């Protein structure tokens, strides 16, 4: 009552409009506008046949590609053409890459979902939920040649002889570095890890530290496993025996400890997958290990920075120069998908892979086909990219052919490696040493114990 009286008095004084009244009218207008739009909301669900012309339907789930133009091409051009040819309504749904695992689990739990599910890493852990993709692999191999070693070792289980996924593409992982800053500190390029160690303190001193994450995220996983390899450290051997506790691992841990102390900052322990991109694109980081999303983003956002950015293969370590695929595009078909839909899905995947040149181009050379001969004249295509400095993307061909292996090399990307990857044991091992919580020997031993348990579990499940 008292409020109402005050309001009446206020109206009398102010000529009819109080602050509260303005807000209420504004809100009322907003509600009216919203309500006007309500009938258009998607109450009825996804229409099965939009134009009632096409006989079949096919549903695909995959990540939102960092190149929006790729999704535009895939959703609106490629799938439409393929759909018309096969009398099929193809619908493509996208999701953020971080949500892919959760969404996959939801579809498995629901026993219902998309006909084709596109992952960004091999899914050995989902082997029991998916069909054997051998048929598609063999058909594509007959048409365009053998699958690459990285594709085979990522998606084939030598124990069960099952293809638990179809390797559609992989993404080479170059090192991005600032030519101008490295020149400023008197280091020509990060050709070896020793070069990086020499340059890092000088770069940090001029406000441009090196950026290699030691966090529970994808880029840290990839960079650190690759670094391990360069020093001769591996998670497993070719026979799926844990070999993490080795001299190579301890040397890599010591190296990273030195690199962190002299040339990096604490932020690397709290990074997300986007942090190294953002650090490099803001002009702060002098070096980052990432797929070409950094270089491509620089071309759009900061052309001046893009000109100063160069790409090289992973620096050479004392043992070798060997990197990983940054991500691997793997298509899977769930077992609970009906047989007719499985047939359609297999057809789609095979056709996409066999004509991969368009996908390669529309992804701005991010997606390399897992069947190398599906695209020809890589160097010519990469060299034709118009961005400055011209020809800088040719190095991706070298990286893809010579310096890219699967996670779990020299063994296969089995379920145990999958679990180790998804629980970030490698970044945690490096972080513990860099932060001074463990010595390299202690960290390697602790990692070995954890990994052996994981391998034992999957051996009991007869997946290794």
């Amino acid at each position, binding site marked *: *009552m008292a*409020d109402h009286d005050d309001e009446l008095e206020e109206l009398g004084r102010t000529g009819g409009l109080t602050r*509260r009244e303005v*807000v*209420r009218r*504004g*809100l009322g207008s*907003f509600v009216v506008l*919203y309500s006007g*739009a*309500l009938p*258009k*909301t*998607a*109450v*009825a*669900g*996804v229409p099965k046949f939009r134009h009632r012309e096409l006989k079949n339907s096919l549903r695909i*789930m995959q*990540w*939102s*590609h*960092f*190149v*929006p133009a790729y999704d535009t091409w895939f959703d609106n051009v490629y799938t439409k053409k393929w759909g018309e040819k096969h009398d099929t309504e193809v*619908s493509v*749904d*996208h*999701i*953020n*890459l971080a*949500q892919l695992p*959760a*969404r996959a*689990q*939801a*579809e498995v*739990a*629901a*026993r*219902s*979902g*998309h006909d084709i599910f596109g992952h960004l890493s091999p899914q050995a852990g989902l082997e029991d939920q998916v069909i054997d993709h051998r048929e598609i692999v063999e058909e594509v191999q007959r048409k365009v040649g053998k699958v690459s070693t990285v594709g085979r070792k990522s998606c084939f289980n030598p124990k069960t002889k099952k293809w638990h996924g179809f390797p559609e593409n992989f993404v080479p992982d170059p090192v991005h570095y600032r030519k101008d800053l490295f020149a400023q500190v008197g280091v020509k390029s990060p050709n070896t890890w020793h070069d990086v160690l020499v340059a890092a303190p000088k770069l940090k001193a001029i406000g441009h530290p090196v950026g290699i994450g030691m966090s529970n995220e*994808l880029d840290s996983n990839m960079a650190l496993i690759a670094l391990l390899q360069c020093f001769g450290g591996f998670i497993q051997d070719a026979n799926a025996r844990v070999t993490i506790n080795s001299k190579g691992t301890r040397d890599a841990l010591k190296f990273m400890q030195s690199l962190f102390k002299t040339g990096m900052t604490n932020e690397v322990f709290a990074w997300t*997958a*986007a942090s*190294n*991109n*953002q650090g490099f*694109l*803001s*002009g*702060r980081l002098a070096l980052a290990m*990432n797929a070409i*999303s950094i270089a491509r*983003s620089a071309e*759009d*956002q*900061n*052309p001046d920075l893009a000109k100063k950015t160069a790409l090289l293969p992973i620096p050479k370590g004392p043992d070798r120069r060997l990197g990983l695929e940054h991500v691997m595009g793997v298509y899977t078909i769930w077992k609970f998908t009906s047989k007719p839909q499985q047939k359609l899905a297999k057809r789609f995947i095979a056709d996409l892979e066999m004509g991969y040149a368009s996908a390669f181009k529309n992804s701005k050379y991010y997606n390399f086909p897992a069947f190398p001969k599906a695209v020809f004249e890589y160097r010519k295509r990469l060299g034709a990219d118009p961005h400055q400095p011209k020809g800088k993307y040719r190095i991706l061909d070298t990286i893809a052919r010579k310096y890219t292996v699967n996670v779990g090399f020299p063994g296969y990307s089995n379920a145990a490696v999958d679990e180790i990857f998804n629980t970030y044991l490698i970044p945690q091992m490096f972080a513990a040493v860099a932060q001074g919580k463990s010595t390299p020997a202690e960290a390697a031993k602790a990692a070995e114990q954890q990994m052996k348990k994981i391998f034992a579990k999957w051996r009991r499940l007869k997946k290794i």
Partner: protein
Amino acid sequence: MSWSNIRSNGLSYLVVGPFAIVLAFPFYWMLTTMLKTNGDLYNPENVPFKFTTVKGDPEGRSPTFDHVSFIFHHTNYVRWLENTAFVGALVVVITLVLAVPAGYALARLSGRLGQSVGVGIFLTYLVPPTLLFLPLSRVISKLGLQDRLWSLVLVYPSFTIPFSTWLLMGFFKTIPLELEDAALIDGCSRLKALWRVIFPISIPGILTVVIFSFSLCVNEFVYAISFISGSTHRTLSAGVPTDLIRGDVFFWQSLMAATLIPSIPLALLYNSFLNRFIAGFTGGAFR
């Protein structure tokens, strides 16, 4: 205005002012970020709180509306807003229909058992969606509601109702029993007493439930991303991170715009009913 008035008001502003600045600052940050060009935003030499046009910036002058218009022309943003409003409105109605009588019954008619049941109901609110989304996926699939907004309308009350019931329980307890007794003595049935006497007094509590339930629906993410995969059928909380975070590339300006725009009506809503909202939380029907 007397000196003591100025002093007391000044002291209030001195205390409240810094809090207001700190709380409003993120909105200012969002507003400036959404209008910056890439060259301005990503240049560490630029002051982040003002606009600086960078020479040779392909986007031209900063500020720019390009990134704001991006969400309206290159994403299904308007559809996400509509979907969110639709789901939110329905869930609020369902919550009110179920939580108000439940809260009243537990507060008035259940004795000591009501108190325990009320706490038990509230505890279900504490079960996180990250545990429930897997079994609920199966339920949604069995009901044929995958990729439909009805899946969210069905599931969201599972966390809005427990919280709202518990909140209203506490609120109804603050209403004097004598008011109902008087109504009953005057010849009202229980239902009529509820409708004619209790509910009008309970407007603050009910409004609190409305605002909270709607906010919970707008902010919910796990179910939205698990049950709905098509972009046109998404709500805001699922659509924005899907389309505006691509791999490891964040479209920061568009993200800020996408999150600031729906904050405005929510802020208006809160402000509109501020007194009643506070009363809803603190209780008090004494007149």
